[in-house]
């Protein structure tokens, strides 16, 4: 069930009904006993006396495709019992309170699904050439830093 080079990006926020539909699609695979989902949401961080209104995401898309492919292969190698993995990341503007990252792993049992999901999220943040411009309400910006 290893997906080949999928484009993980979609413009703007990831809507809740997209996530619901994605869960529903797995109903036909009755070997799955556990799903693990991670949803990244844009925070309205207060920095000095300003508040983040949204994050504008950009990426080196061609490189992300390659890095994500390697990441996926690595995860499936480490977790052979993983049934499937889906990754969706926003590009462009995502307002505070909206979802910008959706990672979805499924397996027969919970441990593999949970561990694979966590590791995928960590690796996405560390390895994919994606950047976020945090916009404030006064139209100034700063660049997002991952911890």
């Amino acid at each position, binding site marked *: 069930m290893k997906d080949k080079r999928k484009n993980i990006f979609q413009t703007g926020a990831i809507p809740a009904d997209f996530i619901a539909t994605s869960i529903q699609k797995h109903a036909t695979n009755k070997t799955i006993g556990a799903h693990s989902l991670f949803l990244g949401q844009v925070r309205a961080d207060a920095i000095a006396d300003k508040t983040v209104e949204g994050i504008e995401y*950009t990426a*080196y898309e061609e490189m992300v495709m390659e890095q994500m492919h390697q990441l996926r292969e690595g995860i499936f190698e480490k977790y052979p019992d993983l049934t499937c993995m889906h990754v969706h990341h926003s590009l462009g503007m995502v307002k505070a309170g909206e979802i910008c990252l959706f990672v979805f792993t499924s397996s027969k049992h919970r441990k593999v699904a949970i561990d694979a999901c966590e590791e995928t999220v960590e690796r996405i*943040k560390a390895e994919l*050439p994606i950047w976020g*411009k945090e916009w404030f309400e006064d139209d100034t910006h700063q*660049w997002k830093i*991952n911890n």
Partner: protein
Amino acid sequence: MLNQTLKTVTIKVFGQLADITGRAEWQLQADDTDDLQTQMQTLYPALRTKNYLIAVNKTLISENTILNDEDTVALLPPFAGG
């Protein structure tokens, strides 16, 4: 024949580094990545204080790398996905 060693490559600049350069993609001539970095830092001194990784043809490099015609060199500031 100096020109025989100079290769025309595409440079791509992302994130806060593009704020410094004011442009995201263009072509320049360079022998290797060290040469390219020197040229870039001469053009844009503010780059000297920035942390970034370099990718040649979408692969990260960790040491000076010889360039070929039509290579793509990308300057990548710290990743901030998610």
